[in-house]
């Protein structure tokens, strides 16, 4: 009755549903963040290109692109799992998943995969558009890949936590506006933390987004503010911690099963 095959089919079906869900509204979920990312790029590079050189031999525009890619990837990974959950809860159709034999692990995997794929899709789209105008070779592709993967997974797990916790859309929006946006804007997307006063450098190092951006950027230039391996370890530990919390919430049925 319950076999490995039924478990695999069940997990794949939920992954497929999550992917089709965001693809059906790709203008909102993919095109819109790509356009926003490109606008940041145009505006900031136009204003600061000739005034700043953060790393030796790297133009400001080149410096900016990996940060923008990662920021968009993270924001969209979060948006995917959180919005899917809050919409399903508000509409009531979460019941279809809750009535099924899918386990909390299957639930978690499907939502994380959905989040990572959307994040990667948005990030890759920004990269492909950007390299039409700017030469941006990737020095360490595997470093880029692991940061993208764990960064997307981390924000996907955070999105699951937020989506389960929030009861209304305004609570969900508060998560985005008061947690995700400030953390991503203050993570060194637009600058190196070495250009900040020492107190702000220390504060920035408490921000997990900083390590995701900095390590991801290392993959492009081979230069970073802190060791990319330390960053990868921190990102991985955050991913494991948030995943554990999300899995515990799903397992206990917190705000899903009364």
């Amino acid at each position, binding site marked *: *009755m*319950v*076999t490995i*095959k*039924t*478990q*695999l*089919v*069940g997990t*794949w*079906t*939920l992954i*497929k*549903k999550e992917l*089709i*869900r965001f693809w*059906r*509204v790709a203008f909102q979920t993919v095109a819109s963040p790509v356009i926003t990312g490109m606008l940041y790029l145009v505006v900031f590079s136009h204003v600061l290109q000739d005034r700043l050189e953060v790393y030796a031999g790297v133009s400001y525009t080149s410096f900016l692109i990996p940060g923008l890619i990662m920021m968009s990837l993270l924001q969209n990974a979060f948006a995917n799992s959180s919005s899917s959950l809050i919409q*399903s809860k508000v*509409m*009531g*159709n979460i*019941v*279809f*998943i*809750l*009535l*099924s*034999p*899918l*386990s909390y692990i299957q639930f978690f995997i499907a939502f994380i995969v959905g989040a990572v794929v959307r994040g990667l899709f948005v990030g890759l789209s920004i990269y492909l558009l950007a390299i039409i105008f700017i030469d941006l070779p990737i020095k360490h592709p595997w470093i880029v890949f692991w940061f993208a993967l764990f960064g997307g997974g981390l924000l996907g797990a955070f999105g699951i936590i937020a989506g389960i916790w929030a009861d209304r859309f305004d609570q969900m929006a508060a998560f985005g506006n008061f947690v995700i946006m400030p953390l991503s804007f203050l993570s060194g997307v637009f600058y190196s933390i070495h250009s900040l006063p020492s107190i702000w450098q220390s504060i920035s190092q408490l921000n997990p987004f900083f390590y995701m951006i900095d390590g991801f950027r290392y993959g492009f230039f081979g230069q970073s503010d802190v060791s990319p391996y330390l960053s990868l370890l921190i990102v991985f530990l955050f991913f494991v911690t948030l995943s554990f919390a999300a899995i515990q919430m799903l397992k206990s*049925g917190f705000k899903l*099963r*009364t």
Partner: protein
Amino acid sequence: MKTAISYKNVKKIYGDLNAVDGISIDINQGEFFGLLGPNGAGKSTMINMLAGLTKPSAGNISVMGFDVQKHYQEARHAVGIVPQELVFDPFFNVREMLRFQAGYFGKGRENDSWVDEIIERLDLTDKASTNMRMLSGGMKRRALIAQALVHKPPVIVLDEPTAGVDVELRQKLWAFIKDLNKDGHTIVLTTHYLEEAEELCNSVAMLRAGKVVAMDTTKNLLRKFSTKNLKLRLNFKGEKKLPINIEHIPHQIAEDFYTFQLKKITDITEITEGLKQSKIEIIDIQTVDTDLEDVFLKLTNAKK
């Protein structure tokens, strides 16, 4: 006969409220079982606990022998639940939604022919490619029933399935559910419409304030509580007063209608003779049998 669903001393407590208060019910395989009761009686809580949407505060529930907590995956494979609310996923059309639901139960492409069959049997063929948002309430209800059937569960639970559904669709739905029951599916139904339960269910449990006030086969319940009533419309030539020789027979008066509760069939002769002697004319005459609603009212009033 084997048990399809078993509730053993099940309780659900929300703060000070005992929504379900120590209920034990066994429902046999192949039965058409009705869970009846007023709002707040605990019917939906019973269903939600069976579905795993609500966790019992105490007791055990099993479906086809699988505990809904310990062996939840097997238990959920064995049951298809039609929720009370008209919920739907606005991103998908009917066929997509059914295929996804089948997939959650581990059914792949090989199940597509069954999906097409239930689409056809529920008259959804024309709407199979229509987005769920665009369906009428009745169509959404059919799609929900189809969703509960996609994984071919032996037990089907319908929580108020005909609430807000027009008469024609209601008849069609019941014909379909009856066929499923004939095919061997165990059906559990909660409803406010007692005449529906009387017509469809072999057995019923009547709930009030989280407790079972009566549980038996529908026939037995009606027999146990059955009374024959004689309803007469009378024309009094003079004072509106029943003759002394029949006044002792329990009766109710509503305008010109006098409803006598008959203990034995000879009561009819006694009543008609008494009226004749007093020159009271019988304008209309009918006999009224007890229905499930009467039983329900008697039981719930008695327990108040």
